[in-house]
C-alpha cells in the first residue's frame, strides 16, 4: 500500500485512484471495527425472528390495558414523585451550574487555576454516566426519590454549566465595565450586569434540561430512584403486562404534556427578547 502511494504522488493526480488510496486506510479500519462489533453482539436474524411470537404474545397480554391500576391513586402519586424528582433536581442543578459557570467563564477574570478547576469538574461530570452516578448514590444515600433527585442535580451540572458559561462569555462587556467604574465589586457586577443579560438564556436552557431530566427520572426509577419508572418496572417484572400498558400510557401523556408546557414557556421567554 505504501509503495503504491509513493508511486502515484505525482502532481495533479487527484483522480479516482488517488481518492481511493487516500481513504483506503480509514475505510479498512472502519469495516474491521464494524465487523468485529457485529460478531461480538451475536447478531442473528434467526434469533430476532424466533422472538417475534413472544412479541405478539406480549401485545396480546397487554390488551386491554388495565386502567383499574390507576384507580387506587398510587400511580398518580408516583407521577408526582417523578415530576418533583425532575423539578427539584433540575432547579438545584441549575443553581449549581450557574455558580460553577461563574468560575468557568473566561470573561469574569478569575484566576486561571479556578477556571480550569471549574471546567474540570464539569468535564468530569459529563464523563460520568448517569447510571454509574445513581448506583453510587444508591449505595451512599439509599434507594428512593431523594437519591434520584440528587443524581439529576449532579447530572445536570456538566451540560448546563457549560451552556451557562458560554452564555456568560457572550454578554456585552460594556455594562460590566460601567459598573466597575462606579466602584461596584464582583458580586454586585454579577448581580446587576451579568445576571440580567444571561437570565433568558439560563431559563430557556434549564427548561430544556427539565425535559431531558424527566426522562432520566423515569429511568432512575427502574434502578431504584422511585417514582413511576419503578411502578412500570415492577409491573413488568411481575408479568402484569396489562398494568404496564396503562402505566406506559400515563408516562406518555406526562412526558408529552411536560414537553409542550416547557416549549411554551421557553418560547415565551425567548420570544419576548426577540420582540423588544
Amino acid at each position, binding site marked *: 500500500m505504501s509503495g503504491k502511494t509513493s508511486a502515484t504522488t505525482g502532481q495533479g493526480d487527484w483522480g479516482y485512484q488517488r481518492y481511493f488510496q487516500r481513504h483506503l486506510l480509514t475505510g479498512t479500519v472502519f469495516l474491521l471495527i464494524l465487523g468485529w462489533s457485529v460478531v461480538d453482539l451475536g447478531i442473528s436474524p434467526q434469533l430476532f425472528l424466533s422472538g417475534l411470537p413472544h412479541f405478539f404474545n406480549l401485545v396480546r397480554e397487554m390488551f386491554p390495558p388495565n386502567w383499574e391500576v390507576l384507580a387506587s391513586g398510587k400511580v398518580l402519586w408516583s407521577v408526582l414523585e417523578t415530576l418533583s424528582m425532575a423539578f427539584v433536581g433540575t432547579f438545584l442543578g441549575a443553581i449549581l451550574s450557574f455558580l460553577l459557570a461563574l468560575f468557568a467563564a473566561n470573561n469574569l477574570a478569575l484566576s486561571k487555576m479556578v477556571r480550569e478547576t471549574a471546567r474540570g469538574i464539569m468535564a468530569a461530570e459529563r464523563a460520568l454516566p448517569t447510571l454509574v452516578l445513581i448506583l453510587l448514590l444508591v449505595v451512599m444515600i439509599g434507594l428512593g426519590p431523594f437519591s434520584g433527585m440528587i443524581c439529576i442535580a449532579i447530572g445536570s451540572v456538566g451540560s448546563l454549566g457549560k451552556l451557562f458559561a458560554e452564555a456568560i462569555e457572550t454578554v456585552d462587556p460594556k455594562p460590566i465595565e460601567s459598573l*466597575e*467604574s*462606579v466602584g*461596584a465589586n464582583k458580586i*454586585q457586577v454579577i*448581580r*446587576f450586569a451579568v445576571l*440580567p443579560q444571561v*437570565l433568558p438564556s439560563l431559563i430557556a436552557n434549564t427548561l430544556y434540561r427539565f425535559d431531558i431530566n424527566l426522562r432520566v427520572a423515569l429511568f432512575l426509577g427502574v434502578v431504584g430512584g422511585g417514582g413511576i419508572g419503578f411502578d412500570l418496572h415492577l409491573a413488568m417484572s411481575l408479568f402484569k403486562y396489562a398494568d404496564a400498558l396503562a402505566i406506559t400510557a400515563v408516562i406518555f401523556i406526562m412526558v408529552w404534556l411536560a414537553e409542550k408546557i416547557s416549549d411554551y414557556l421557553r418560547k415565551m421567554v425567548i420570544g419576548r427578547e426577540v420582540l423588544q
Partner: protein
Amino acid sequence: MLAVKGITKKLPDGRLLLREISFEAKKGEFIGILGESGVGKTVLLRCINGLTTPDSGEVILNEDGNPQKINGKKGQELRRIRRRIGMIFQGSILVKRLSVLENVLTGGLGRISTMRSLLYGFTDKEVQAALSALEKVGVKHLAGRRAETLSGGEMQRVAIARALFQEPCLLLADEPVANLDPKNTEVVLDYLKPLTKEMAIIAVFHAPELVSRYCTRAIAIKDGTVVYDGSPHLSSSVLEYIYGTGPAVKSA
C-alpha cells in the same frame, strides 16, 4: 483636584500610544479633549479611573486636601476611589434588561454593601434620590421602562442621571453625544454643563465647535502628547494642526 502626571501607555505591539501626558483639572472646569480618532483619547480616560493601567505615570485625585493615587490600587481601595469618579461611556453603558430606575440605582453600588445590593435593599431615600436625578435630566417619566426600549438620546440622559446619583467629584465622558442628532446633542450637553458646579468634567469630543460652545478649556492630543491646552475656542490653524498636517503650534 485631579492631577495627571506623565501618563505613558504602550499598545500591545509595543508602539507608544500615550507619551507623558500631564494636566490638571479643577472643580468647575469642563475640559474637552480633542484629537484624531485612534489617538488614545478613550485610553486616557480609562487610565484616569483605573479601568486601564498606564505603563508609567500617575493619576492623583485630591479631594479635600487628601491626595490619593489611583493607579496601582486594587480591590477595596480602588473601588473607594472609583466611587468618586463618574463615567459616561461612548455609546450606552446601561444594562439593557434592567429598568431605567434600576440603572440609575446601580450608580450607587460603590457605597452600598454587597449583602444589601444582593437582596435588592435599596432604601426609599435612595430611590427618591434616583428619581430626582432622573427628574433633573427630564426623563423621570421613563423610570419604569426597560433601558433597551429607550432612544439613544434618552439613554445618554439616563447615563447622566446615573452619574448624578453616584455623586462623583469628577465626571469622565467618552463621546457623550456620539450618534445623537443635533437636537439631542444640545439637550444632553445642556444637562451636563451645569454639573460643573459640583464637579470637574472631562469629556472626549469629536466636534471642536461643541468644545468651544460648552467647555471651559480644551486639551488636544496628537502623536501621543498634549499639543494644545488652553482656551476652548481653537483657531483654525490649531485645528488644522490637530487634525491634519498643519504647522506646529505652541500651546496657548
